[in-house]
């Protein structure tokens, strides 16, 4: 029975719940002994330890080595609740608390910290027998989560080329109860699978927009408060991605979000305009990208465009193709028209931040907080009002375009380079725009640049010029911050439109200013993917994207919305 099972690798295909791998943590050796005996009688596989730290080490050493953790509340080295939190965050395993003390307040605390259950000592054996239900429940939940991602994922999947559910991604931790997924055995197996491949890849992970988008989506889905690398990993369903990758990315993202928050006041952010070269002039060209943009949103129902994969949160920008998205970037043309309402859908709650870019250029400030995509705060990118964009170039909305046109979308690589360059260029350009954004852009660097970025790079450069100069009145019309996490999407769009969308590829930070075809300044807002604080409604509002501010160009520059923001300024660094 239990003892027969070897290690973690063997999926429990046999009678569940037998063989459940339980980790018991309690400072009282008497209890450890008793619990161990009881659990063994239930045919579970038991590991005991009396120190919380030791328990955490054990858990970390073997991810997926345990199915459930039972812990005492009062322990000398670490508070039981703390351990509970850690486990929840890092490993996302179900945790059962136990204590002699059954006071309501304690139980409440346990639940608040995420405990699956709270047992009162002395614990009866029958109570222990049923702990498997928590494991099972989590698996079902995970499945459901994955399923919900399917729609979104499908796009990604095609890109990434792996089947979302074939492996039965059972996010090991999440309690998604989709119920339709296989049983635990499968789940468990899958979990392991998931972790196995991911663990093999140790190479540096490049957080592409696509990946980032997934990430953000996953984070949003989970809920910023409860987010944990494992959960995200599971939701993202990227086989080669390891938990560490996600964890570090998450960290960056959080920093990013918090940074965005701070910067929301800063006008800069304009930077994002990485318009991929949308050579197209506003209208015609813009449509191209616009379409693309729309496409993107369509594809990604939830619009989590993860720019640079770092913050999947913001990703969901559903550019609702409001007609105005004319191609990204560029075209800062006068009149912000089309309000792009980009719905940024967070993967989980449909946070579609509607970026309604009102054409008014002024309000860029608001929505752009992409960073906040995550969650709850619907990003409203007030693209349309890019209040502060001080692009000097007022008079030359077309300038950008020209710039773009020049950039023939050299191709992803090129664009990237250019983007990088443009980033730098932008910096100076965006003098007016707070340099903050530029900074953001900076780090974006080539990482994860969207393929489009490369195009955008050149464009961006141009764009930036324009922008900076004229405060590009970017009509951020609803620039659907297409973060196009999937750079491909962006690219595609761009390509489709013939406009290179170099956006965003500037690694996450690139805040693509989606300029609507009609030169609506696009507020990048979306980019705040990096915001460490995922839930920064404020971010959203403030739009770390100062891009928006920038977008407030006086002039109306139509930036093709195709620009993706590489929000992750810091993240991707």
């Amino acid at each position, binding site marked *: 029975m239990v003892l027969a099972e070897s290690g973690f690798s063997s999926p429990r295909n046999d009678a569940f719940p037998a063989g459940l791998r339980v980790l018991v943590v309690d400072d009282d050796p008497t209890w450890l002994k008793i619990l161990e005996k009881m659990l063994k009688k239930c045919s579970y596989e038991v590991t005991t330890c009396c120190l919380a730290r030791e328990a955490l080490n054990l858990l970390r050493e073997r991810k997926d080595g345990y199915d459930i953790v039972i812990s005492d509340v009062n322990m000398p080295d670490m508070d039981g609740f703390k351990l509970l939190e850690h486990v929840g965050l890092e490993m996302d395993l179900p945790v059962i608390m136990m204590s002699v003390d059954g006071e309501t307040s304690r139980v409440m605390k346990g639940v608040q910290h995420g405990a699956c259950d709270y047992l009162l*000592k002395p614990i*009866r054996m029958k109570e222990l027998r049923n702990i498997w239900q928590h494991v099972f429940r989590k698996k079902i939940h995970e499945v459901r989560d994955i399923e919900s991602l399917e729609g979104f994922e499908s796009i990604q999947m095609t890109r990434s080329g792996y089947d979302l559910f074939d492996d039965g991604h059972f996010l090991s931790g999440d309690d998604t109860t989709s119920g339709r997924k296989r049983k635990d055995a499968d789940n468990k197996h899958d979990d392991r699978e998931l972790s196995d491949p991911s663990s093999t890849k140790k190479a540096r992970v490049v957080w592409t927009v696509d990946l980032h988008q997934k990430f953000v989506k996953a984070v949003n889905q989970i809920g910023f408060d409860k987010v944990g690398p494992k959960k995200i990993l599971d939701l993202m369903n990227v086989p080669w991605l390891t938990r560490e990758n996600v964890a570090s990315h998450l960290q960056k993202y959080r920093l990013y979000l918090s940074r965005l928050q701070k910067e929301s006041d800063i006008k800069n952010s304009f930077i994002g305009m990485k318009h991929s070269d949308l050579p197209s002039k506003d209208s015609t060209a813009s449509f191209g990208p616009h379409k693309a943009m729309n496409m993107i949103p369509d594809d990604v129902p939830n619009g989590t465009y993860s720019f640079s994969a770092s913050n999947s949160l913001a990703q969901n920008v559903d550019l609702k193709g409001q007609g105005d998205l004319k191609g990204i970037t560029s075209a800062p043309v006068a009149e912000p028209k089309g309000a792009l309402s980009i719905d940024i859908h967070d993967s989980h709650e449909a946070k579609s931040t509607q970026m309604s870019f009102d054409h008014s250029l002024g309000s860029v400030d608001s929505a752009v907080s992409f960073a906040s995509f995550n969650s709850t705060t619907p990003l409203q990118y007030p693209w349309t009002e890019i209040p502060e964009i001080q692009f000097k170039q007022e008079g030359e909305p077309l300038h950008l375009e020209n710039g773009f046109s020049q950039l023939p979308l050299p191709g992803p690589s090129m664009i990237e380079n250019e983007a990088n360059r443009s980033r730098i260029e932008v910096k100076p350009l965006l003098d007016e725009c707070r340099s903050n954004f530029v900074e953001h852009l900076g780090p974006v660097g080539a990482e994860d640049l969207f393929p489009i970025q490369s195009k955008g790079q050149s464009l961006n450069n141009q764009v930036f010029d324009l922008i900076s100069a004229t405060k590009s009145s970017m009509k951020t019309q609803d620039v659907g911050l297409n973060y196009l996490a999937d750079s491909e999407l962006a690219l595609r769009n761009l390509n489709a439109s013939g406009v290179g969308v170099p956006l965003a590829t500037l690694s996450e930070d690139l805040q693509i200013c989606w300029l609507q075809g009609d030169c609506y300044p696009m507020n990048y807002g979306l980019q705040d993917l990096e915001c460490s604080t995922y839930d920064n409604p404020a971010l959203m509002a403030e739009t770390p994207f100062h891009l928006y501010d920038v977008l407030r160009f006086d002039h109306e520059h139509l930036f093709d919305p195709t620009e993706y923001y590489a929000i992750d300024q810091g993240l991707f660094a």
Partner: protein
Amino acid sequence: MESKHVHQQIAAMRQSFFDEEVLDEFFSQLEQLEDQNNPNFVEEVFTMYFRDSTTLLETVEQAMKTISITLAKLDKILHQLKGSSASVGAKKVLNEINKTRQVLEKGNLEGTKAGIWEMRKEYESLKAKLEPYFQV
């Protein structure tokens, strides 16, 4: 024969434990855990319990002596004792501990002392009772 007698003795003793509420039903649980592999499981558990709780009780005594004992600390120790006692189903001891803790909460140090004393009494009596039980 003799074994039968012994068995009877054991049974009687055991019954008295329950009757006197020295031990509660959890003790039965422990007994259930015993099996071929662990014939002396219960005894082992109790041994551990006695060992640990002796230490704890001493700590309590010490704490009481020190002037600057904080209630929180004392409470912590008592909590531990409580847990241990619950693990063996030491009902009376547990009750005493609870009483003591309540008094402690009210901040009544004297009352706490008395409570601890009572607790200790029960504990000792439990020990005394169980030792022969196990020996048999």
